[in-house]
């Protein structure tokens, strides 16, 4: 089970970025600045301002990942999927929605907020903007390594028709009741392609060997280390 890493993009406490423009590993503790449309897309976009914060950070990281891989522009829809691992999902949006629902026994419940209380909705936003017709889902799993979505994608690429999967993590800062100050909030995605891409100098081959994930001849133990290695070897 193997795939080629052809793009990396993120929005973290380190800011917005993409792999080919820096050598600094961006997954770090700190506060997250929610991006504006201008920081992510050059063109005016009516929808971006309506998105909840969870969707904005996820969409921003996916945009930068595809940009990094030279895949942001498209003409024909393409069989790329998305696997986004999340611990808290859209819990902050759930809480915001409840603030509209509870006070008046549902009379003022916000339909716009409710639409974003399904964490996979931002994947739909990404799919329609970038023409992605693969499988799109949010993954919840106890996983401190950050590698679960990559493992999921590597397994699925073997038997699915998708040519690639954008796999990564997406989490806002946790609500106060869960915060411990050590979190690295944000969103980071890697484009894992089934085959090398013509005209793209990738970061390298990611491989599952039994339970071990291997990259550049060494076992990968966590997502920050993998990203750091990618940014170093590129």
């Amino acid at each position, binding site marked *: 089970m193997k795939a080629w890493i052809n793009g990396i993009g993120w929005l973290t406490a380190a800011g917005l970025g993409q792999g080919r423009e820096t050598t600094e590993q961006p997954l770090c503790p700190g506060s997250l600045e929610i991006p504006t449309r201008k920081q992510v897309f050059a063109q005016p976009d009516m929808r971006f301002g309506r998105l909840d914060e969870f969707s904005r950070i996820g969409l921003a990281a996916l945009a930068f990942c595809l940009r990094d891989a030279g895949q942001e522009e498209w003409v024909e*829809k393409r*069989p790329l*999927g998305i696997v986004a691992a999340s*611990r*808290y*999902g859209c*819990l902050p949006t*759930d*809480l915001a*929605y*409840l603030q509209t*629902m*509870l006070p*008046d*026994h*549902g*009379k003022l*419940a*916000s*339909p716009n907020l*409710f*639409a974003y*209380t*399904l*964490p*996979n*909705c*931002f*994947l*739909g*936003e990404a*799919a*329609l903007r*970038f*023409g*992605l*017709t*693969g*499988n*799109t*889902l*949010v*993954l*919840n*799993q*106890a996983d401190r390594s950050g590698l*679960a979505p990559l493992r*999921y994608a590597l*397994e*699925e690429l*073997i*038997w*699915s*028709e998708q040519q690639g999967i954008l796999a990564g993590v997406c989490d806002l800062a946790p*609500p106060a*009741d*869960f915060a411990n100050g050590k979190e690295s909030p944000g969103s980071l995605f890697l484009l894992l392609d089934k085959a090398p891409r013509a005209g793209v100098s990738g970061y390298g081959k990611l491989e599952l060997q039994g339970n071990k994930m291997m990259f550049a001849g060494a076992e990968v133990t966590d997502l920050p280390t993998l990203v750091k290695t990618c940014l170093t070897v590129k």
Partner: protein
Amino acid sequence: MSRVVISKIATVTALGDGLELLWQGLLAGQSGISPVDRFACENYISRQAACIPDLQAPRHASLLDAILERVAAQLGPVPSDSRLLVASTKGEIDLLTTVCREEAKIPAAVLFEPLLAKIARRFKLTAVGSNINAACASSTIAVARAAGLIAAGQTDAVLVYAADLVSEFVFSGFSALQALSAEACRPFDQQRKGLNLGEAGIALLLMSEERARVCDQQPLVYVAGWGAANDAHHVTAPARDGSGLVLACNQALAKAEIATEQVAAINAHGTGTIYNDAMELTAFNAVFGETLPPLHGVKGSLGHCLGAAGGVEIAIACKSLQDQQLPGTVGCLQPEEAGQGRLSAESQQIAGDYLLCSNSGFGGINGVVILQGGA
């Protein structure tokens, strides 16, 4: 490639506990949709939902606990090394609503990690697994992944567990979106006016044929094909041309290596909303053309069970293949023109070995599973 079987099923729905009771209720044209008494509905556009009878939870516990207990007791033992794939869209959302209403501290239990651990513990599994959140296609996609993993030899047993609740959180949201029907919903009917919510718990044990033999499990059906695709069209509305569903159907047919005329029946998503049902009929006509088989939807009986919908419908499809019958689509009195001759409020006889199940959801996602009978 290993052949994939479903060897055990447990269901808890508005039509009672157990697949046989559910099946008999569907054949009798029963509906579990009735006025909700779980929360006040006077500010919502509907009072109707399909709630599981006698579902109760202690204070500051989720109703999901009661569903899990009833499903697990019904399913019995499963191999402890089975992978666990859970499909739930909102998990213990009733608990979150309660603590927010009381302005209490938010417990970790509202996250998916403790829920996964709880489910794994109840089924005595060694690994805690993961939750797949793909809106209303969650459990279909979980079954598709389970089948893909087993067929490719990446594992040989997967427990798919799916559950979602009728909660005020979701009910109020669909009401705010004007998506609820004030009356019992009427999937694929010309006069349909929206959906009714439902709730369910479902467990499906998938195994390689070889592992099932070793475990002395009789296959109920085979999982022959699967597909998943995004419309890449809109976040909450389906693509009018059904392009994502067409793609997912074609992937599943290719995986099953069958022609459209070999599909004996379709269990459609059939929410009862104007756009979903029209999209599905467009897609199925595009895929099947003149070979469009009989089709039905069960949400007029069970409501829309969200992340658990696909799992319940796959369980029902197993019975359809075994008994060669397709339950009627409750509420479908005047079928949409594109489904006429294929849809009926009465049960239909079918003849064949393959049945296609599909679900579509917010975020533009579509999931399809093709089951094969004759196991």
